[in-house]
């Protein structure tokens, strides 16, 4: 392995092949996950936390007589792998056999190597991040700003005893910020593989303008209203659907709403949702944590639920093809789509607002939790910009509202899908457009 914590493909395969080759287990999978990142955090328009980190983990899955165990360590030096392997095998020997384990996946072809890293972003210095913060803060025009600029690069490499070899590297830059104006706040978020493509000046101006518009919020009586949801709000709902509903294991176990509705019309026909790690509008790796190549997976086509995510284990149990959505193994959570996209429509956000006689414009959802997974019911709060729309225009800011909605019902009530799709999501990246829907239930309100 090279001295760099982020190895090139040859170094990564050399390390992993040595591990797999020395393993006494019947089958062995070795995954290297390495990352170098910096995060510059600001509050009150000054940098108050500023960190850089680097780490590399080896994730081992060993199989002995059908018994499976996992071991993770960041002691990845070659000299230590014999000890690590012996530990993993010892755990497996003490574990009962797993009758659902289908064996490790085999190779789909030759080694898969993907390079998606922008060097200037991968190697961005603390000075570059601080400069980015300064540009953003200055563009806010004096309004207090809080947020974070993050840059980094990560690599994942997979090798197993059946010959799978996959390597991918990607960079990521993001800005997340909230700007405060009296009782109003404005939110912006932008993520890209390239730090230079974050338009910090316009993001700052937009956040400040949104904060000004959100001043002096008024109460709105809770109830069911038409809504216009901006991309961060739509994206978060899609992320929750990915975790709970398009999860093949949840479907198999009857916990997903799609356990009984796959193949049925579950959303408005204007809704198209799919997963595609290779789409240039998202940031992903073209293989999963078992090293299986990814391809586009349609989830909702013209409102009909047509697919869910599988890994090798759930695909084997369901008797369907593996869709290559394994998380690090062994994993009791099951597989999930990690690069969800929703097709944009034709109309601008302004046109969605103009077409709304009376409704609520929601910038962002906060603290979303699943209340009833099988009915896709979530609760949460609106945050950082909630507005009343009347007669096709924004007439006032609103105090934040609590909602309880079925995500499938919201997507079934879609009136229009906006054109301005973008990559959103602070945890799970989702490409989402704005959406208007004719029913969204607010059940309570807060004091700000």
């Amino acid at each position, binding site marked *: 392995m090279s001295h760099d914590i982020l190895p090139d493909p040859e170094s990564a395969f050399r390390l992993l092949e040595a591990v797999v080759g020395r393993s006494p287990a019947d089958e062995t999978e070795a995954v290297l996950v390495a990352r170098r990142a910096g995060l510059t955090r600001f509050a009150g328009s000054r940098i108050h936390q500023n960190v850089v980190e680097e*780490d590399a983990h080896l994730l081992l899955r060993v199989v002995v007589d059908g018994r499976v165990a996992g071991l993770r360590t960041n002691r990845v030096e070659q000299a230590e792998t014999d000890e690590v392997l012996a530990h993993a095998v010892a755990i497996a020997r003490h574990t009962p056999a797993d009758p659902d384990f289908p064996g490790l996946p085999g190779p789909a072809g030759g080694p898969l190597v993907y390079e998606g890293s922008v060097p200037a972003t991968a190697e961005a210095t603390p000075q570059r991040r601080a400069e980015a913060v300064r540009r953003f803060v200055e563009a806010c025009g004096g309004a207090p700003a809080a947020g974070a600029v993050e840059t980094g690069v990560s690599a994942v490499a997979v090798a197993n005893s059946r010959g799978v070899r996959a390597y991918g590297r990607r960079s990521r830059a993001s800005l997340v910020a909230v700007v405060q104006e009296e009782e109003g706040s404005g939110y912006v978020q932008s993520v890209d593989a390239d730090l230079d493509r974050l338009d910090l000046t316009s993001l700052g101006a937009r956040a400040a303008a949104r904060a000004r518009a959100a001043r002096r919020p008024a109460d709105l009586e809770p109830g069911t209203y038409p809504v216009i949801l901006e991309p961060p709000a739509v994206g978060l709902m899609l992320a929750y659907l990915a975790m709970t509903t398009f999860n093949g294991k949840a479907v198999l176990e009857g916990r997903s709403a799609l356990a009984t509705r796959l193949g049925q019309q579950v959303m408005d026909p204007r809704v198209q949702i799919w997963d595609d790690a290779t789409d240039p509008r998202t940031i992903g790796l073209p293989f999963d944590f078992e090293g299986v190549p990814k391809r586009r997976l349609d989830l909702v086509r013209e409102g009909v639920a047509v697919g869910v995510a599988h890994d090798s284990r759930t695909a084997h149990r369901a008797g369907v093809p593996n869709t290559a959505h394994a998380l690090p193994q062994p994993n009791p959570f099951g597989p999930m789509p990690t690069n969800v996209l929703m097709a944009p429509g034709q109309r601008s956000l302004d046109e969605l607002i103009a077409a709304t006689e009376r409704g609520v414009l929601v910038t962002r959802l906060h603290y979303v939790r699943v209340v009833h997974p099988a009915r896709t019911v979530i609760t949460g709060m609106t945050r950082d910009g909630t507005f009343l729309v009347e007669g096709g225009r924004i007439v006032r800011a609103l105090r934040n509202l609590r909602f309880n909605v079925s995500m499938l019902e919201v997507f079934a009530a879609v009136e229009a899908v906006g054109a301005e799709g973008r990559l959103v999501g602070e945890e799970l990246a989702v490409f989402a457009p704005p959406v208007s829907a004719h029913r969204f239930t607010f059940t309570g309100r807060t004091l700000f």
Partner: protein
Amino acid sequence: MADRWDGLAERALDAGVAAGAEYVDVRVVRSETLSLSVKNGRPEAVVADDDEGLGVRVLVDGSWGFACTPRPEPEAVARAALQAVEVARASRLVGGPAVRLAPQEPVQATWANPVRRDPWRVPLEEMLALLATATEAMRRVPGVRLGEGFLDFWRTTKRFRSSQGAAIGQTITESGGGIAAVAVRDGEVQRRSYPASFRGDFGTGGYELVEALDLAGHAQQTAEEAAALLAAPPCPAAVTTLILDGDQTALQIHESIGHAIEFDRILGMEAAYAGTSFITPGDIGSLRYGSEVMHVVADATLPGALGTFGFDDEGVPAQRVVIVEAGVLRSVLTSRETALLLGQRSNGTARASSWNRIPLVRMTNVGLQPGSGTLEDLIADTDEGVLMCTNKSWSIDDRRLNFQFGCEIAWEIRRGRRGRIFKQPVYSGITPQFWSSLDRVAGPAEFRARGTPNCGKGQPAQVAHTGHPAGPTRFRRVQVGSR
């Protein structure tokens, strides 16, 4: 701690000072975890994790910088120290008032929590057999599709060194687990957990904590309640008296007290991510948080609780702090940086999730002080209301005011007795109004510290382990219903 880190903390410390830092602290941390998940008698995931590294935090001209390395090599740790200084200098580009630290006498000490049965010496077969027995018993109950069992163990070994002379070693062992039954019928899914949801209950200690839970002994009742929920009516909407069991009381404390009293949140340091707090610095000492029967203490010294330690990650000794006294806010949780803004010394709550993260203000064991009576006494003393048990969902706004919490099960209370069960119960409120409606807290017999091993905060994300002494509580005029 493995010998391969010997001398490296001091090397990083010296490199940071030599590079011009006015303050340096270094933490070397090794985290070992063992996680077992069993479903319907079969192992789903048996995973061991072993992770170690060194983090160095510096103050340069009043600005923070932090860097870290997993490599136990002299060059790597010196490079991390220089990187931290470079990061701190970059912070000055968008600077504000210089950071200063509240005074703290440097401590040289070691600390470890008691462990009667080391989890890493318990045969895996024994642990997996326990989970197999419990999950198979749940699966046999008609209506139950999934019996799930979990055990988790953490052993964290830390060294702390500071340029002010602190030298502290700690070993913290944490253990726990739980079971859950999932009943499925006609598209309806209901879940019941013991002793708590989200993988169970945890504390500082060894395998004896798991043995005390008697998971197998509770499997049958847990599964039967899950199955019964399939046919139960939803909890009717009403404004009524609400009794919470100890588990849900702990969640209520965590979300509507614990996070709200973090002084970094109050100061806006988490404004863009987790949010702020409805509390302002001027509220400390006078804010009416709740009723006269509300007494809250943050106690990092509590034996066996999940938020217990010897010293925080700034080298400040663990403390017992009165937070709310007879309903009035007296103190908040502080670090060395934030405490000085109140003219105080740190009350020892700055903790980092590992070597590669900076310390943040985190809850320790934030809990209620017990009152009197048992859960059954509270029920017998209630003419009409609802008893809710075991958290299922939790959501609260970004100033910790408007909340909605859901539970796995509720019982109707009529004329002092439990009646039928309800599914999907939720309740909602506004934090100070809700705590002002607290009129009874159960007594010590039903009190224990409940462990929360999944408390998220910060960017980059950190997960902390916190404890919450709690027992059953009763609140008047609460909005309840079903979702």
